[in-house]
């Protein structure tokens, strides 16, 4: 994979190398916020504090109760309408660059409470942007570690020093097993064609070159 913004204009070799170093340092010193609402929080505690799994091996064991000192928000447990506002506040209090991991079915999509519930949110990405989704109910600690490793990879490969806020979602970087990047890209182009858009390929390229374009990316919530 290409590293950072190395091929962009106006960037020299030194800055690129520095970016690499900083990204590496960032990815290996994630400080998670102790934020858990239900079952997933227990597995998160098993992963982060307990001796059998021990998150300290990834430099991420310094769980902080204050959002001001944390840069990784592991959303563990159902978020309901009433909790959405405090969660957003917590997220906004975290210093940049900040990352969000959504663990468990409730956080990703509403999980067991997706239907018939009058208060559970169906996906925390309605409230805050999410970087890595770790499915499971709850995910086992190793699964959460894999999520953290995935996030570390994203930080190393994606977050730039010059654009700390622009954290581009590399949809095709962490792929489900047995699925290639080309398959996904073909799928997208097909979808665009099926939607009857003209100049599919050009539109595709435009959205890639101008990530901030309004409506270019029909994703949920904003990124950043």
């Amino acid at each position, binding site marked *: 994979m290409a590293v950072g913004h190395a091929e962009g204009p106006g960037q020299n070799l030194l800055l690129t190398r520095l970016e690499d170093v900083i990204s590496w340092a960032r990815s290996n010193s994630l400080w998670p916020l102790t934020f858990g609402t239900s079952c997933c929080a227990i597995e998160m505690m098993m992963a982060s504090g307990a001796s059998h799994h021990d998150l300290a091996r990834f430099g991420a064991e310094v769980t902080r109760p204050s959002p001001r000192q944390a840069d990784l928000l592991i959303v563990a447990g159902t978020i309901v309408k009433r909790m959405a506002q405090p969660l957003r506040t917590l997220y906004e209090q975290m210093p940049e660059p900040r990352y969000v991991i959504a663990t468990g079915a409730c956080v990703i999509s509403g999980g067991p409470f*997706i239907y018939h519930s009058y208060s559970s949110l*169906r996906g925390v990405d309605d409230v805050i942007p999410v970087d890595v*989704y*770790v499915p499971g109910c709850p995910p086992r600690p190793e*699964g959460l*570690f*894999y999520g953290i490793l995935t996030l570390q990879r994203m930080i190393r490969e994606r977050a730039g020093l010059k654009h700390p806020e622009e954290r581009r*979602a590399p949809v095709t970087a962490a792929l489900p097993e047995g699925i290639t990047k080309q398959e996904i890209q073909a799928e997208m182009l097909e979808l665009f064609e*099926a939607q009857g858009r003209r100049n599919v390929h050009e539109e595709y390229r435009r959205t890639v070159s101008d*990530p901030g374009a309004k409506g270019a990316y029909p994703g949920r919530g904003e990124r950043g």
Partner: protein
Amino acid sequence: MSWIRLQPQKPGPRRIGGIELQTVSAPRPDSDSLWKVALGGLKGMLGGMKLTLGYVTHPSKVVTQQYPENRETLKLPERARGRLYFVKEENGFHRCTACRICERACPNESIIIHAHKGEVTKKPEIDHYVWRLDTCTFCYACVQTCPFDAIRFDGRFESAVYDRRLLVYNLNDYAGPHDTLARKIEDEEQRASCRTPVRPYEGPVPASGEKLHGIEPLGPPRGEDE
């Protein structure tokens, strides 16, 4: 030494709820003089520290597992619920008869079955067996109720992705009849032709193009290199 191992007090029967039951009472830790307090505090602290430091000299008691390094050797319990998969016969056919028992057993519609009536077999044949990992609660109801042992859980847990829309799976790799049905087709060529290959991933609009609840169709990746 009462503060090291506090013995229960006053064992005896108590009467409650119409019956007699045996109880023991909590001891009261007592600490009278300041010296005793200070000494007790120090002793308690040293006792705890000795215990903790004991693990330095007994490294065999250390229980930490080296997860990413031990990926090859990591053995999960055989009943672990990680990922759902289709059981495949030796000839490559699956066992699913599209009876929809698992779909009904699923508490939150994480399984969506699209089936059609086979042209050759005149029986329901599966088009897409959609499994939503993003809502699955791993309650095991689908595997438990399946009368044909067509689906099982395995221990694959490394499923983290950057986009939740990638958490919708097609479990079947072909659309067509299941094993027993396929065996009834005697014509070898016909049997082969009734299997239409299905891509393992067809996006969150898997079969009929309809949108799944709460999931947008997959658009182009933002900022993705071409």
